[in-house]
């Protein structure tokens, strides 16, 4: 539930921002819940609103998480 799509802030006004979702898709959305976002930020959009700023290095973060789980094979056997 809650489809939220990542994109990059192309342009910002007081209440709105234009988000580039990649593949040439751009839409004007509202930033009332995240007024601090800036041009160039990666964000996530739900139902026409930016709901959160995203970390830039998305893939790297999660893969680091996996590597940091410190899974010791011997310990868990």
């Amino acid at each position: 539930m809650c489809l939220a799509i990542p994109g990059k802030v192309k342009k910002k006004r007081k209440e709105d921002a234009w988000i580039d979702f990649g593949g040439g898709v751009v839409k004007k959305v509202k930033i009332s819940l995240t007024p601090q976002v800036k041009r160039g930020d990666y964000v996530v959009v739900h139902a026409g609103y930016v709901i959160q700023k995203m970390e830039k290095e998305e893939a790297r973060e999660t893969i680091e998480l996996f590597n940091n789980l410190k899974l010791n094979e011997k310990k868990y056997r």
Partner: protein
Amino acid sequence: MKRNIDKFREKSFSQQVLQKIDELQSGKEIKIMHVCGTHEVTIAKWGLREILPKNIKLICGPGCPVCVTSAQEIDSAVKLSLTNNNILTTFGDILRVPGTSISLAEAASQGANIKVIYCIDEAVSLAKKNPKKQVIHFAIGFETTAPTTAVEILNNSNLDNFSIIPSHRLIPSAMAGLLKSGQCQIDGFICPGHVSTIIGSQPYEFLARDFSRALVIGGFEPNDILLSILMILRQLRKKKTSVEIEYTRLVKPAGNPLAIKKMWQVFEPCHIGWRGIGIIPHSGLKLRLKFKKFDAIKKFNLKIKRAFDVRPGCKCGEIMKGLAEPKDCPYFKKQCKPEFPLGACIVSIEGPCFVAYKYGSI
């Protein structure tokens, strides 16, 4: 915009995680529930149940807001949409879900004035452009959507021809309700990624502390789900339950404090019925007294006396609680199909019955 999303779907990474999952589990049955329709779509779409060890059961919980919106609320929306001078706005997701007898789509065929929107500000614009009409927005959704409704109410407090049917619901309360009922044996939860973007990890902590359940906030790519399962198994193995965030690229422990603040400025918790399940305490959102003028039910003095949530024999409720699967329902794929729905679960694109129908494994 460059994205690394393909890494989260990479087969080689999946294989690594699956191997670790295999090493970590002891053969005992582990039940993991997710509470997010989009998670169910990911699981079914990528065939994840087929590639996990057989003793790890991924259960679908009541994470589809469309499925759990009660027939009474849909009947209210239908009634308001059929009234002259009203325009009902709704997200497309709930259009074909039947209330007691008809859905909003069928109401449209009968002449109801219904507009499908993508963002609630379209409803507000509609109200401003049509001052002589009453615009009512069917406000469904969980904590991801509720702040957007709150913001429009706060920013348009003088708008007299705009109101909502308040139908937002709260996920952590639903999870607690399921556990407290004693009906569901769940070892761990994959918590919804986007609800958690708003609420953060704190609202789930009592579930780890008081109920000793493993909780991981997971993302929406197949490798996010696999990684979340691995983290849950690790907690269970260590016998140390907590709330962990797998979806670190988006979810922060504090969530989005501004969104949370706006939501609680406008709404307060209430008891609400989840379709087919029953009333779960403190799991709904009602408008605070100050904003009561935006409550369409009160404004138009709507009294829906009897609302029929489920047909006799329909298993939507048990399915939403994780106690049954779509294939256990006598109507599934027979009298109940997406084009002739008897229940809500087969209409919503994220409903467990629809997902089973669409992505049905062979």
